[in-house]
């Protein structure tokens, strides 16, 4: 399929990849052994991570090594410290972590152990999306296996290092994937995001220093420790190093989760990896990184898929979940479906988000049904401007405002056409992506 070197998904192809036996046969826990038996100091591990340039795979793309270094100095702060692994993968279009949880749970556990060692965390919590039943069971079974093998718990591999790993099942709220909402939920409260500051590294789970990392981010850690920062930097671009898991969905011939280096053009991903737009149709638009990132028109298809390039094109890399839409797609309908999602998932704390997501959804729905006015189109922009950026506690409001802005910017004509005709100009042919899915 592609000539690019891969590492993350290699093991996932092996039969019974989720078992400790197969994992060990394929080099599993060697990175942990290297850390504990060499031994590398926690600072050494963080230095390697910083050197590798690994950026968080949860959507924001924040440098992982830097994030770990925000944990307070143990000499000055003796509170217990935690790692929380965000496996509440719920962004529409995003489906990469599911593969890792299901097929390579020991890779996650090894990454967690190294991360906890580096941050001197005594325990890790894996917050798994509630709908991910098989992935949850696979990770739970893997933790049991690892614990029985002396890899999790007291004195890991016979060393002084001890680390517990606990699991938590989400109950279906998208907002619990926001890092502070996740922590509230882990504490047994409603998943209402917390205002920042204070940041999790200073005041996280139960008020103690905490780092929240995405599954894919953690999964990268053992590879970087084993093979070195230089190897990692040899893949991807200068500022977006390594490979990422690209979840491709929508109107393509071969949707799926692919491991790709950063920097490939969206066009080559669409055409060479995903087999092109389905049914021989033309591309109309695509989300580069999940529904929270601005939708881009077909004209932007040559953008390189790395954090900076996608940003330069007026969108965001997000989680690398690309959603392609063919020429029959009604973008108004896409916006309606997207905003319906955000209205449904807004936690309701902040006025702008609670009311704004509902309002935007209502307007898109009216326009799609032919009941819109020309004023509505401008109002979409002004309302979205009132919701973001940075006007609310968390970024869910932004996540609703960004696609709204992009739809108005790139598909204003189509919105106005709906208003003028009093109906959807594509009625009958429209194929909503992800509607009701």
């Amino acid at each position: 399929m592609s000539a690019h070197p891969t590492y993350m998904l290699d093991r996932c192809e092996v039969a019974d990849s989720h078992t400790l036996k197969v994992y060990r046969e394929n080099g599993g826990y060697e990175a942990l052994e290297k850390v504990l038996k060499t031994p590398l100091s926690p600072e050494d591990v963080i230095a390697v991570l910083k050197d590798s340039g690994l950026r968080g795979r949860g959507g924001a793309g924040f440098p992982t090594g830097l994030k770990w270094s925000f944990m307070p100095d143990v000499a000055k702060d003796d509170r217990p410290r935690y790692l929380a692994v965000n496996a509440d993968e719920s962004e529409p279009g995003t489906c990469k972590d599911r593969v890792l949880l299901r097929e390579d749970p020991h890779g996650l556990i090894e990454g967690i152990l190294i991360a906890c060692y580096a941050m001197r965390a005594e325990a890790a919590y894996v917050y798994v999306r509630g709908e991910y039943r098989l992935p949850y069971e696979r990770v739970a079974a893997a933790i049991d296996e690892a614990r029985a093998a002396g890899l999790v718990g007291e004195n890991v591999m016979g060393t002084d290092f001890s680390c517990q790993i606990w699991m938590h099942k989400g109950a279906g709220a998208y907002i619990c994937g926001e890092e502070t909402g996740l922590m509230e939920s882990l504490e047994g409260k409603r998943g209402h995001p917390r205002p920042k500051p204070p940041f999790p590294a200073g005041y996280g789970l139960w008020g103690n220093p905490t780092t929240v990392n995405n599954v894919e981010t953690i999964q990268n850690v053992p590879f970087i420790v084993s093979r070195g920062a230089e190897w990692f930097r040899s893949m991807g671009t200068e500022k977006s190093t390594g490979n990422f898991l690209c979840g491709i969905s929508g109107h393509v011939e071969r949707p799926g989760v692919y491991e790709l280096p950063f920097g490939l053009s969206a066009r080559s991903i669409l055409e060479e990896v995903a087999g092109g737009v389905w049914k021989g149709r033309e591309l109309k638009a695509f989300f580069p990184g999940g529904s929270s990132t601005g939708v881009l028109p077909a004209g932007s298809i040559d953008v390189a898929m790395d954090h900076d390039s996608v940003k330069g094109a007026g969108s965001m890399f997000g989680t690398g979940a690309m959603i392609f839409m063919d020429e029959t797609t009604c973008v108004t309908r896409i916006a309606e479906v997207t905003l319906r999602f955000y209205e449904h998932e807004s936690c309701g704390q902040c006025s702008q988000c609670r009311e704004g997501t509902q309002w935007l959804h209502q307007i898109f729905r009216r326009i799609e049904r032919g009941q819109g006015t020309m004023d509505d189109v401008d109002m979409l922009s002004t309302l979205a401007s009132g919701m973001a950026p940075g006007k609310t506690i968390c970024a869910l409001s932004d996540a609703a405002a960004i696609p709204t802005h992009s739809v108005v910017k790139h598909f204003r004509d189509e919105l106005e056409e709906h208003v003028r005709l009093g109906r959807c100009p594509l009625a009958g042919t429209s194929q909503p992506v992800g509607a009701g899915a």
Partner: protein
Amino acid sequence: MTKITINGREVDADPAQPLIRACHDHGADVPMYCYHPGLSPVGSCRICQVEVQQGDMPPRVVVACRTPVVEGMVVDTEAERAHETRRECLEFLLKNHPLDCPICDKAGECDLQDYAFAEGQGKGRSAEPRRKLEKRKSLGDVIVLDQERCILCSRCTRFMEEVPRTPQLTVSDLGSRSVIETFMDRPLTGNYQGNLADICPVGALTLKEFRFQARVWNLRKTPSTCAECSRGCAITVETLRGGEVKRFRPRPDLEVNQYWMCDTGRFALDRANLPARLPAATLRGQSGLEEADVEDAVDVLADMVGAHRASAVVLVSPFATQEEAAAVQRLAAELGAAPAFVSPPPNDLKDDVLHTGDPCPNRRGLTGLGFEALTAEDALARLADAELAVLAGERVVELVGAEGLAAVRASLRLVVLDAVPVDVPALDVALGVPTHVEKSGTWVNVDGVRRRLSLAVPPPVGVAPLEQTVERMLARLQAAEVRG
């Protein structure tokens, strides 16, 4: 203290408090809904946006209730960007808020209404139907909830968690479907529910007792002190035209009650709106008690006292102010009696929030003046041995016990100064006194804090302050001595 600049003026700010406190303390007008100085800040309503500049960073618009005060920060609450962000936020808040101000009890003291008047656009842009929810959901005996008016500031849920520490309210469901509910729809319990109506920034939580009773702009508000226990919470007495007390509401007093009061105090309106009053003066005549001129009554009194002062009992009500008590103390000295006050036993309302369980609001003050605390039984026992008794102060007869007093031998010379009518065989002279909402004076609370009562309602015609009446008696007695 931290030095910051607010609207061009350098001020001292308390670093332990969020920026919004410094703004309010120094006269800057920053709106707030979710923030309440007595509750933990959550920063969710997003209305308190102000522009802040720190160090070399460009100015940012931030929510003042979640922004810590930092030395040297420059705050502009009137920056155009801050106003703009607040206006945007207001528009979202008004999107689903019903336009029922004309029938809303909160109108006139509604934070949302006030700010919409100050900054709103006049005309809503929303063409969408407003949220349809429960308009009158009973939350128990005290509070009724209008879910449509609710702006989900969560002050109420935080209040229940943080002040009486009885979490009974919660936000349920998500996003635009969020509503305030009690757990399992159970009625609210506890003695602090009334505060919910005060802290609700809109008309979502209102008092059943006050429902459709008055428009708040017609209420005259007088700062005073609650009479229901020895905490002496700072309150406002709110009266409608004609002098009817419609509400007691807490007033912030960080030394005493912070921002709250209990429902026992809040709903003690019957004690302020008495159905029948003791006239200025009544004397026992041929056909029982007859209304008389105060001067005549005082004359009779002086004659009576002259003959019986040898074994006199002087008793005040625990509601007596320091000023009233001082006058009564002088009278007691003149009569050679040891001053005492009726001290009812503690009630079972004591809690660890505000209520002390001691129904005597001025116990500490009276004790400090040297008044002896007497139970009703002890008081009656003393009356049994006395020839003359002066009982002075609001509710003194009730607290000694009207039945016990009726059983006292008729030959006792009994003088009563109370607010409500009394008729017992021993009674010779009765003089009307003002209630606690009809007088000014001082009480000393359980912790020794002195607080003022203010006259909120004029006493009935002719009824003078108790200390004046007592001084008159004293003057008449002393004049009689000189003559004698």
